[in-house]
């Protein structure tokens, strides 16, 4: 069996490693268009915040490690086309076209930071971070400039704002919606963070959509429907898009251009699979699929796909969209649906808020939590936490609850450890289950 | 530039909204009217949708233009007159009301008013505002809304909410949030306005816990408050330049500019308003002191009394007793009566007002004989209206010490010649009925026209104003006093009767 995997980032590499264990005899070929594999897209943030010292640390695996496992890696190989009739893939390597056959094909090219709507995306004064090339340029831009405008108030936007403020830069932020990380947080939960950012000098433009980016001499000008915003540099922090220009038109896509897969991650064409940022993920909460670009999804689909290459046997459990990060001194974490988003859900929902000290002995620090659940069945649908103490791990309890279909009353009875220095009498996750309406 | 040939008056009443366009001679050249929904969420509660009112006003403005063929840019100014005391609280940012408009008759805030009375604030309010504590007035309604809409008090304190009576609401809407103003006549019906200082009374606001930041700016009755935003006025920017509560607008529309001039509107009840000049007079008989109007830097005060049952007595003849088919025929029927006015009807359906203030009294009829006819009944009922008006006017004379030689009348029953003649006889004063009975709308038009120089001054108004018909007293003094003492006796007898079934 000859397995070809296109894309050497989290999804593709995980798929290769898992397939290796499962199919001892198979030939596994990984095609990667960059000169290295396994670049971590968040490296820029970690570098700016001093968590790592050099770009070289921004890799989670090397070619050598893969080759030791007899996974063949073809670097600098840009896939140009695929033919599902003859089961062949054509790639370009150093200006030469090479066509190779496959038995199983896994599309794992991930996503690209681009916009089809904003004019002037080709400007050199836009900070991007997804590849090592872009990160290198970005570091230089950060070094040389003082005023930055971040386009997009999602997780990436917040992290970039945090890193830039730490670098003593002046930061402005433009967001189309009327709040921060609105996909993951209800605005009342995130209000303290917003306030903190304002205190630290971040200027916000909410309800504004960037239409055009223009460079005039040393200045970058961002035009929205209402404003013209000037700065030295722009930071691209909008959602990413599936990066699949080579896709055979016969492979069915969603209306948004991402690849349509069944629950075994198989596309509409036999022997072709897709994972990570190329597909819409099954939601853990309903029958819907979403486009959710998260490393955890890339990894998990990479594992599941290997199971299904020969026989469809392991369905992908879906995504609860779990995130966590620390910005401006706040740890924030979210899983499942938000209250704002619950309008798309066809059943009645209810919410609970809890605020409590971080532990029995530490009453200064508090943790704020919110739970969203089905008002009828009591099933947990979503949760959000914010605290100045690291509570990020707690979100995993909730995401597990969602995936296991736990109810509020089951959550209230969850087993947990107690230690007066490290916990409260009632763990917040239990407390969320206990609260009366 | 188009010649500005007209003034538009918007008359926003309790059951309908109207727009009337007036020409330079004060003639009605186009009008439109539209009813809107009355909500009765609970016993004794009456509410309107403030947005529906705004909608209806938009519609009648359009209707008046369409009917008359006059174009918006031919309008020199807009006058607004309105149902008074009705209370709206809305969100400053979205422009959406946070609760229905609570209408003046609505009783939901009575407990708040009762408590103020119990705590002994009657004098406190009377001295400052000229009013007797009651749920009619806006203050308790605002309090009620702030108490009953979640988070309202806090939002009001932050300046996120605005209060207004209907005049304020309409100007705010017409100017697209540009002007948040009220006029003295409306402000003086809120029970929060100090009629001496012409400012919101901080002590009252503190007592009621109503944030000043939500109140509109009080202005005179004739000045430019703002311009209509073009889309709201069909493409034209027109100054809104006159505003007054309905009763005060009627006083102005009746040209009652001098102290001692009185107008009476015969509606469902009767509203009698007397111009008392530039200093306020406080009544010893529970009549209300309000501001009549403020114009050209001067403020004219008024004293106001009301008769609870006027038109409703005639409705009772029609719907209760079923002895008449319509109100119009009462005049003819009354004339047919041959009796000697010995029958007295005291229509105290809901108690007696000024100067008796007996809420427990109920109606009575005296002097029935074998010869009493339907016509006598109708006549006596009409007379009861006139007697009650005299009761109030006598009280006004007593309170102010001003003589009243002339009563100006309007309203539905003012069409009734018999009533007006009897009114003149029993008052021993002239009764004057203007040509145009829409004095409320006309008054607002006058106020608006004067502010923008459409009319130069009051003298110019007098030039074209047609006084209409006058009814002169012709009853011998002896007979008058005999009849009136008969009425007084009938009232006394009515008050003596307090039997209630247990």
């Amino acid at each position, binding site marked *: 069996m000859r397995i070809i995997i296109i894309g050497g980032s989290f999804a593709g590499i995980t798929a290769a490693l898992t397939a290796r264990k499962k199919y001892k005899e198979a030939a596994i070929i990984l095609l990667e268009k960059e000169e290295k594999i396994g670049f971590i897209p968040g490296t820029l943030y970690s570098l700016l915040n001093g968590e790592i010292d050099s770009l070289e640390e921004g890799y989670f695996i090397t070619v050598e490690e893969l080759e030791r496992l007899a996974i063949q890696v073809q670097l600098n190989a840009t896939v140009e086309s695929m033919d599902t009739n003859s089961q062949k893939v054509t790639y370009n390597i150093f200006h030469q076209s090479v066509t190779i056959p496959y038995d199983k094909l896994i599309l794992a090219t991930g996503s690209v930071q681009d916009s089809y709507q904003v004019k002037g995306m080709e400007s050199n004064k836009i900070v991007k971070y997804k590849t090592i090339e872009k990160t290198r340029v970005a570091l230089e831009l950060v070094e040389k400039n003082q005023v930055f405008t971040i386009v997009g108030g999602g997780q990436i936007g917040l992290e970039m704002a945090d890193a830039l403020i730490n670098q003593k830069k002046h930061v402005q932020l433009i967001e189309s919606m009327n709040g921060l990380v609105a996909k993951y947080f209800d605005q009342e939960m995130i209000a303290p963070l917003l306030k903190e950012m304002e205190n630290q000098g971040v200027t916000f433009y909410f309800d504004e959509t960037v239409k055009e980016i223009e460079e005039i001499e040393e200045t970058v000008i961002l035009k929205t429907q209402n404003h013209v915003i000037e700065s030295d540099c722009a930071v691209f922090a909008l959602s990413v898009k599936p990066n699949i220009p080579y896709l055979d038109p016969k492979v069915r896509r*969603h209306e*948004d251009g991402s690849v349509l897969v069944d629950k075994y991650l198989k596309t509409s064409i036999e022997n072709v699979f897709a994972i990570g940022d190329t597909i819409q993920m099954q939601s853990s909460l309903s029958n819907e699929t979403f486009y959710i670009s998260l490393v955890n999804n890339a990894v998990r689909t990479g594992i599941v796909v290997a199971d299904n290459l020969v026989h469809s046997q392991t369905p992908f459990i879906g995504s609860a969209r779990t995130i966590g990060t620390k910005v401006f001194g706040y740890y924030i974490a979210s899983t499942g649906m938000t209250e704002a988003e619950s309008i798309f859900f*066809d059943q009645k929902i209810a919410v609970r808020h809890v605020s409590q000290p971080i532990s029995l002995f530490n009453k200064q620090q508090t943790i704020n939590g919110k739970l969203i659940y089905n008002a009828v069945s009591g099933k947990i649908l979503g949760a959000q936490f914010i605290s100045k103490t690291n509570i990020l791990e707690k979100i995993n309890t909730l995401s597990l609850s969602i995936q296991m279909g736990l109810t509020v009353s089951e959550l209230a009875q969850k087993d947990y450890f107690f230690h007066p220095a490290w916990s409260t009498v009632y763990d917040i996750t239990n407390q969320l289950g206990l609260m009366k309406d | 530039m188009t010649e500005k040939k007209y003034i538009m008056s918007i008359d926003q009443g309790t059951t309908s909204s109207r727009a009337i366009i007036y020409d330079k001679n004060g003639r009605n050249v186009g009008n439109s009217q539209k009813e809107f929904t009355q909500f009765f969420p609970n016993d004794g509660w009456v509410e309107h949708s403030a947005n529906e009112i705004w909608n209806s006003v938009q519609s009648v403005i359009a209707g008046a233009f369409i009917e008359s063929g006059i174009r918006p840019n031919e309008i020199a100014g807009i006058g607004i007159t309105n149902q008074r005391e009705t209370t709206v609280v809305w969100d400053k940012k979205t422009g*959406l009301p946070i609760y229905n408009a609570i209408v003046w008759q609505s009783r939901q805030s009575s407990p708040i008013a009762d408590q103020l009375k119990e705590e002994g604030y009657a004098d406190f309010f009377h001295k400052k505002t000229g009013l007797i504590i009651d749920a009619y007035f806006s203050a308790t309604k605002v309090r009620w809304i702030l108490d009953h809409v979640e988070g309202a008090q806090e939002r009001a304190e932050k300046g996120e909410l605005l209060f207004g009576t209907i005049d304020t609401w309409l100007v705010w809407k017409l100017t697209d949030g540009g002007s948040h103003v009220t006029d003295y006549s409306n402000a003086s019906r809120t029970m929060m306005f100090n009629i001496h200082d012409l400012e919101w009374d901080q002590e009252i606001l503190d007592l009621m816990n109503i944030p000043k930041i939500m109140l509109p700016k009080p202005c005179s009755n004739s000045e430019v408050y703002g311009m209509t935003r073009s*889309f709201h006025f069909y493409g034209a920017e027109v100054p809104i330049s006159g505003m007054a509560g309905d009763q005060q607008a009627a006083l102005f529309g009746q040209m009652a500019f001098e102290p001692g001039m009185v107008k009476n509107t015969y509606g469902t009840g009767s509203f009698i308003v007397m111009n008392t000049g530039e200093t306020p007079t406080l009544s010893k008989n529970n009549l209300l002191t309000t501001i009549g109007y403020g114009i050209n830097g001067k403020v004219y005060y008024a004293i106001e009394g009301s008769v609870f049952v006027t038109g409703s007595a005639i409705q009772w003849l029609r719907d209760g007793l079923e002895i008449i088919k319509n109100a119009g025929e009462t005049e003819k029927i009354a004339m047919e009566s041959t009796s000697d006015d010995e029958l007295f009807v005291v229509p105290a359906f809901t108690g007696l007002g000024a100067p008796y203030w007996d809420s427990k009294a109920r109606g009575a009829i005296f002097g029935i004989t074998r010869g009493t006819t339907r016509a006598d009944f109708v006549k006596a009922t009409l007379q009861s209206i006139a007697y009650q008006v005299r009761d109030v006017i006598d009280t006004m004379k007593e309170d102010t010490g001003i003589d009243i030689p002339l009563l100006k009348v309007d309203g539905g029953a003012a069409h009734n010649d018999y009533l007006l003649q009897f009114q003149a006889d029993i008052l021993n004063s002239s009764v004057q009925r203007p040509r145009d009975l829409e004095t409320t709308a006309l008054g607002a038009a006058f106020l608006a026209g004067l502010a923008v120089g459409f009319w130069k001054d009051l003298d110019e108004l007098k030039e074209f104003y047609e006084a209409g018909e006058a009814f002169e007293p012709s009853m011998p003094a002896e007979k008058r006093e005999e009849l009136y003492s008969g009425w007084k006796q009938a009232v006394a007898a009515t008050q003596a009767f307090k039997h209630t079934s247990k």
Partner: protein
Amino acid sequence: MRIEDFLEKREAFQVAILKKLILEGGRVSYEKLRKDLNITKASLANYLEDITIYLEEYQGDCQVDSDGVFVELFLTPHFSIMTVYINYVKRSLKYQLIDYIFNYQEFTVIEISNDLSISESSLFRKIKELNSLLKEFNIKIKNGRIYGEELQIRYFYFQVFWFLTTYEEYQEVLLTNQNQSLINGFEKELDIKLNDLSRRRISLWFMISKKRASVSKKAYKNIVQKMIPYKEDYLNKQVRKLILLYFSRYSIEVEEEESMIHFIFLTTQSVLSEKAFIEYDLVRSRRTPTALVDTLLRETILLYYLPTKPSIALERKLTFYLSQINGTLYFFEGALELKDSQEFMAKESKTWGENLQALSEQLLKTALETINESNSSRSSLEKLTLVEYSTVLSIVDFTISKELIIGIDLDLMEMHAEILTQTLMLNLKNVIGITVEKYREHHTYDLVITTNLSSRFYTRATETYIVSEQFSKFDLNQIKTRINELKI
């Protein structure tokens, strides 16, 4: 344009024959058909033969027979002739072209002529023909893509697809989970209820929109201009919020104009119910051209009928219909006509008097003046608007001047029934605008006065009033009130 404009001449004649047959009750003489369609005997024979072959696939469900003298159409009871029309359109080359462009957004001449198996020259000819049809929508096909205002492109596809999508297709293809959650979102966020028709319309609209949303270089010039007055509108803001949230769930980059497009769709394309619209009408911004026109036209109509005042219910209905028509007139260009407007007007005006026709003209004039559109050459949308105003006026006219027919049906002993019937008729004699008669079976009545407690006895939707044998003044008053309610 008309939907038949997609067809080639030959197919157009075939559809015309079928339509004629439907109109004439299924049977037309050969001669009449030939004359009405203005074709030779030979061509008619030719077309009939084509039809016979074409209809073979329906296996007898739909069949056209001809004996040389008469032509006759046979349809089985569960078969809709619409299926045949739809298939004619779907198989036409011009339709396939626009469908192809919709699906692929961009194409090269080689790709498209390969995929549709046509020559390059006929491709160019068809594109030229299509462009002349698309002109009224102010869109065109050029250089391998479709050009024009984004709103116009979606509007055009929506009109065409709406006509061509069958109910079953909606159930299967369009009511996906994603569309379902959007509908949930609309219902919850805007606090409205959407009926089955609105749901299907939303689904189709969003299917088109998602497809189009990722196209780059969209044109929004007119829409941005036209939406300026709507910036502060309550619903517009709500829709913006909802759309941004919805699209953030997918890999679709949303421009500022995207939500404008959906606001326009929602308020003009028969999506909101009357009830939902009336609630919106209370809070909507009055500073908009459409709000202005709605009020002006409504008041013009009300003034026309004075002193008769329509009921509040009728006034609301009127406001609602006008808002849909005026919104379309203000925001859109072009129209896909489903019935012949000229024919409709001609038929209407006969029964209907010139006054109301003049009134429709006046309404259109007022509307165009207010929204600053020139009235020089009347576009197809304006013609359609005129027809729609006429329809609204017909509804008002009909409701206001309706003569009520009242039946009296008393299930009593003969003598009692007789005297009570007489009393009732006598008492109702002076009420204007009603006809009273003894109830006859199989006749339609607006109101039946009866002693019969089971109203199921009467045909569906017949209003009834139940009187007791002891007929009272109370009963009479109630009946009169009922009559007044029914009249308005």
